[in-house]
């Protein structure tokens, strides 16, 4: 297992380097001169020169990349072009809100997705199965921003049950909980569909195996067969997808946070993109990608632990 973990850690290094290279490239593929964009089209040459020097853009590209990488490794992602405050500070002050939103959303997706897939598989070809399968196919086809708008219209504007937007403290407090329900449920829509589909197909596969038939033949109660013998094995691939989905939720948070005015990294990234605040965009992209890579690494290690065959491939 240690060798497997070490191998996976080593494989992550080039990917992280590539991620940093792409994040670095954002500033340099902007059409036209980024300095002109930042300083303004009518800025005098002296201001343009000063901004160029401030950003270090007059140096060769490889020197700029090396400086970007070494500063990023020390936690310095530069300064925002708008607020002039530290990008790392801005991101860290918003990261807990995003982490909270994605975690609650993932919990919702697991709590709804797994039972939905389980019921669909156990009651295969019944109306329950068709309903669950239809619901998951529909969720996969709905644009997340539309789900958000329809739920705001229904639950906030028409019924008045939940607030329209914003964050009001941690989710374990009543007001905080009321504020997180809509954005988290919206963000969970696609993950519920994917998790339930995977649980259903995994369960159908396992329920047809000989050891399940043997357990049934021995007179093991049906609930025990499904819960202990079948589900435990069917859930192994679900673990991988839960991990991957967690990463996708971080990306999806950009849309959800923008609509629900959730004060997280996604909203910060979106505002920075619209304001062309490139250091903040770079920082947000880098952070989400690094978290995504590390989550995947964690999932792979967990998967190797759950299913020993993976380690020897």
């Amino acid at each position, binding site marked *: 297992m240690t060798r497997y973990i070490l191998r996976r850690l080593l494989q992550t290094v080039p990917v992280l380097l*590539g991620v940093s290279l792409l994040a670095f490239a954002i500033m340099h593929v902007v*059409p036209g001169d980024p300095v002109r964009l930042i300083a303004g089209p009518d800025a005098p040459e002296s201001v343009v020169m000063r901004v160029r020097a401030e950003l270090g853009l007059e140096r060769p590209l490889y020197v700029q990349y090396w400086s970007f990488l070494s500063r990023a490794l020390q936690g310095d992602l530069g300064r925002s072009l708008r607020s002039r405050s530290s990008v790392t500070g801005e991101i860290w002050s918003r990261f807990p809100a995003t982490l909270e939103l994605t975690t609650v959303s993932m919990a919702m997706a697991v709590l709804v997705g797994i039972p939905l897939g389980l019921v669909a598989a156990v009651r295969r070809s019944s109306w329950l199965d068709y309903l669950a399968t239809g619901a998951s196919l*529909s969720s996969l086809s709905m644009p997340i*921003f*539309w789900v958000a708008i329809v739920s705001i219209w229904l639950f906030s504007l028409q019924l008045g049950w939940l607030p329209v937007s914003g964050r009001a403290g941690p989710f374990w407090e009543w007001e905080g909980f009321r504020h997180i329900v809509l954005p988290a449920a919206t963000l969970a829509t696609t993950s519920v569909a994917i998790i339930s589909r995977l649980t259903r197909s995994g369960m159908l596969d396992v329920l047809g195996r000989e050891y399940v038939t043997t357990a049934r033949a021995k007179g093991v109660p049906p609930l025990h067969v499904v819960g202990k013998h079948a589900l435990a094995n069917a859930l192994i691939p679900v673990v991988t997808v839960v991990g991957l989905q967690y990463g996708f939720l971080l*990306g999806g948070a950009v849309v959800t946070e*923008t*609509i629900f005015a959730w004060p997280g990294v996604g909203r910060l990234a979106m505002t920075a993109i619209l304001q062309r605040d490139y250091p903040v965009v770079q920082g947000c992209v880098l952070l989400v*990608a690094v978290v995504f890579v590390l989550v995947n690494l964690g999932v792979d290690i967990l998967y190797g632990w759950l299913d020993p065959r993976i380690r020897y491939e």
Partner: protein
Amino acid sequence: MSDAARRFLRHRLAVAGLGLIALLILLALAARQVAPHDPIRQDLPHALAGPSAEFPLGTDEFGRCILSRILFGARLSLLVGVIATAIGATAGILCGLAAGYFPRLDAPVMRAMDVLLAFPSILLAIAVVAALGPSLGNVMIAVGVRSIPSFARLARSMVLSLKELEFVQGATALGASHGRVLFRHILPNSVSPLLVFSSMQIATAILLAAILSFLGLGVQPPTPEWGKMVSDGRAYLMEAPHVSLFPGLAIFIAVMGFNCLGDGLRDALDPRVGRVAVE
């Protein structure tokens, strides 16, 4: 009738999906004839009117007919879905073929794909448009780039399994060039799974392009685009929810159509390609 066609026709959802897409394409092509109004012409006295005989799906804040805008918007959404997928498929398949066929290229190409996969797709697309600037062409590129690694992985796995087979080894032994082996022997035998995956990718591409437009990074006004229409309607959610509701429904129907078609094609042509597994 071939076995695959028979299997496809037995898949009711797939047939329904195909029917939906055919209808959408037809409506998009005939938008000028079918649409009751000019999609861009403003009619302020009728602003935010609810559904009626004159405006079957109501009007937006400028009094423009929502049904007409949806019909014209279908052209754009379908076009973006298909072209973005074509961009991703072409680049991804070429990378996958090269990585699978030439062992020296395998590690560098696939590590580059891993880097692209390290970005959540929405974020990658947003970052690309943010860098290139908002426009229809850049949306297509951004959405296409996102699917390159998935296509590359699929194409690579097809090459790895096919290149050991006798007909490929035979062609190589007879002196066929690398290009001939790849494009005349391996690629034609990989068409089924690639086709299945492409149909599913069109659905994702339509969704992603709509997200970019919703965020203001896609097509610019007054061109009718479904995602932008939903976004514009947000401000009038209280008094006129139909402004956002109907364009969103159009996106849902189009994406559902391609998802159903993809499921059916997968069952008919290539049951091995699992949607979740590949994505």
